[in-house]
């Protein structure tokens, strides 16, 4: 239903520093090449070529020990690690990959060894993803590089597959349903830091699957945000942008007038013409925009800015024009317009229309739904059209959050609801909880009042069930401690109330409206 998963290709160059030197100096292939790194404990091998590895030299080995492994007649070449040159070389290689995907970027790492490409909608030019991956592999090989290629639905999954499943000349293609296959991989496949992996290992957690089953709240408390971030990036629940190596050209148009215009039709004609100019160069490249920044310059007034966010990249003039019109119709012009500038941001490839990408629904329906969300967000604002997302927090008002529907986000569905039943919580939650006044007390339960009052509404206790204690841990900054009750009034209304343990005050928090 429009929550479409992108296709990400990861191209990993194992031992990239070695490959970089060998590609520029092919004669080094006949020598034992050691790339070394100097630390506070001395000089160690960072990486080595195949000949050196045949002699038993491994990364992390002291250079002095590595030298003893060489046999007479071996030509030894020792080069210090030059991370800046390695990164620059990888960046220079990125344009060669542009025919295979949109705006190739480097992985986010101190010493990157991977190029990342979004190939959504590009594969059909090659006759499929496998063919695309094979063409890319041949192009890399022609440049004397050895790459491992994997395609998956998230950067995290593609990275893991490229490092742990792909082999030379054997690309790996994974669909969204294949992601569980990767869960048996070790934690290092998640791009976690060594410190985090070490701490998890001490707890007996060694695979991704083991980590995914752990309580997220506990992980957050003990290990910080990194494991959750990497898990979500791996599953695709959290989008991860690929930062392009080459700057994307700016798509911007503007026009300034000598005299301001006030007539709405004239203003519309001006921005419509500019919008057409803006989108025209995107069409032949099959590119679209996900965000449009509009500035209307006014006479003697501050510039009026309008932002339009779209769920997927598009260059559809009619649709974008309609969205802009929806926003403008709510804002009357209080001064003459002296100029308009439009900029298309977040440029990306158009998504190839493929029914199988939509899970369990027709393409037309998904497309219409996506357009609807764009329209609603444009008119009401992004903060009014929301996707709910559950949060692992026992406090009811903090157990969910909203994200704008126009954000490229797949809602995370927490499993924390599993231990609850259908009537454990009401469908309506008051924020903030309504303070209740008390009248009388129940005979058999002295702590529970007989009648509650809220702004003239009288709630006579019929029956009550509870309490269910909900409280935060002592280590959390704000302490919450409440006893919740299900209350059936004498009229049969079902409401959810709680008593604040710190002061004994009662609150009406929800109801089965």
């Amino acid at each position, binding site marked *: 239903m429009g929550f479409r998963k992108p296709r990400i290709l990861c191209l990993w160059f194992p031992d990239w520093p070695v490959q970089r030197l060998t590609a520029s100096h092919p004669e080094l292939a006949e020598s034992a090449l050691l790339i070394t790194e100097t630390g506070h404990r001395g000089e160690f091998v960072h990486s080595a070529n195949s000949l050196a590895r045949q002699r038993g030299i491994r990364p992390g080995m002291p250079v002095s020990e590595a030298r003893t492994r060489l046999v007479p007649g071996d030509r030894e070449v020792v080069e210090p690690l030059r991370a800046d040159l390695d990164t620059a070389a990888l960046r220079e290689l990125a344009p060669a990959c542009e025919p295979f995907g949109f705006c190739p970027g480097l992985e986010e790492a101190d010493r990157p060894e991977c190029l990342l490409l979004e190939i959504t909608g590009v594969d059909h030019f090659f006759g499929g993803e496998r063919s695309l991956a094979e063409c890319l592999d041949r192009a890399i090989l022609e440049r004397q590089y050895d790459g491992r290629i994997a395609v998956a639905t998230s950067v995290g999954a593609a990275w893991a597959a490229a490092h742990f499943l792909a082999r030379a000349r054997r690309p790996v293609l994974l669909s969204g349903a294949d992601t569980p296959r990767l869960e048996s991989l070790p934690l290092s496949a998640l791009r976690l830091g060594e410190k985090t992996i070490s701490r998890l290992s001490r707890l007996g957690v060694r695979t991704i699957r083991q980590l995914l089953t752990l309580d997220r709240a506990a992980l957050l408390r003990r290990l910080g945000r990194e494991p959750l971030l990497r898990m979500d990036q791996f599953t695709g629940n959290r989008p991860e942008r690929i930062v392009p190596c080459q700057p994307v050209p700016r798509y911007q148009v503007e026009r300034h007038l000598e005299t301001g215009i006030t007539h709405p039709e004239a203003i519309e004609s001006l921005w419509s013409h500019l919008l057409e100019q803006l989108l025209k160069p995107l069409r032949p490249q099959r590119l679209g925009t996900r965000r449009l920044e509009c500035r209307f310059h006014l006479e003697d007034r501050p510039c009026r800015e309008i932002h339009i966010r779209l769920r997927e990249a598009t260059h559809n003039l009619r649709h974008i024009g309609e969205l802009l019109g929806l926003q403008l119709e709510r804002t009357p012009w209080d001064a003459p317009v002296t100029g308009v500038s439009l900029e298309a941001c977040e440029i990306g490839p158009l998504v190839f229309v493929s029914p199988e990408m939509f899970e369990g629904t027709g393409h037309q329906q998904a497309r219409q*739904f996506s357009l609807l969300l764009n329209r609603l967000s444009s008119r009401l604002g992004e903060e009014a059209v929301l996707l709910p997302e559950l949060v692992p927090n026992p406090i009811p008002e903090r157990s969910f959050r909203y994200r704008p529907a126009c954000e490229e986000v797949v809602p995370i569905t927490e499993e924390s609801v599993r231990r609850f039943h259908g009537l454990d919580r009401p469908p309506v939650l008051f924020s903030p909880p309504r303070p209740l006044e008390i009248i009388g007390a129940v005979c058999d339960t002295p702590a529970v009042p007989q009648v509650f009052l809220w702004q003239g509404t009288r709630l006579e206790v*019929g029956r009550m069930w509870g309490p269910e204690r909900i409280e935060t841990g002592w280590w959390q900054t704000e302490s919450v401690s409440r006893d919740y009750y*299900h209350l059936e009034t004498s009229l049969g209304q079902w409401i959810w109330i709680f008593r604040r343990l710190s002061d004994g005050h009662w609150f009406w928090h929800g109801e089965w409206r």
Partner: protein
Amino acid sequence: MSIHETFFSRKQTIAALRQQIQTTQSGGLLRGLTSSSPSAVSTGCTDLDALFPAQGVRLGSLVEWLETGPASGAGTVSLLTAREVCPSGRALVLIDSHDELFPWVLKLWGFDLSRLVIVRPHSERDALWVCEESLRCEGVGLVWANLERLTSLSYRRLQLAAEASAGVGFLLRSSRSVREPTWADARLRVHPLGMGRAAPCFRVEMADSGGRSGKIRSGRPWVDMTVDRVRGLLHGISEAANPLSVVS
């Protein structure tokens, strides 16, 4: 024509018109429904199905749920029904004008949050616009909305929008609006019932535009219902079996 014949003819016309009005009020003639309408979807509760002219919620129609006060149960029953009725693969749009829906419970009740959008409009006018736009969208299976003030014209537009997309609109309104004209297939008033069970009980009754309880083709014009404590399913009181205590 004799005076007697004229009088008799007028009487027949009045009787025919009365019959037509009654059929229209129960949602039958206007939309050409039969009891075995193929596009009707079950609410998951046979007793509740019986209250609808098509023995279930007809795709491309509106249903009005009337609240009779705080915690009346109209929202609860309508949301649980929406879960059953929303066509598979299509999205659900909840227009929460009061900013009070608890999404956590929607997940608990089995809603697929990835196909659910909550809209919080700033005004009644916006809410009406969102409702019509969403109902008109083929990607949306069901629109649930708090809409208090509706003119007959706006109502008719909503009904046409629902028909165009074969979606369903559930409108949650206060019982005050019962005297206003309706274009809904069914207008159901929900009261809480204090039955001392360990689950909320409600009476869902059909209401006509005059504010009186309507009549349905067969059986009573109302049904007493409760919610299954574990799975959150709706049952007629006669169907409900041995509800467990709420807090064990």
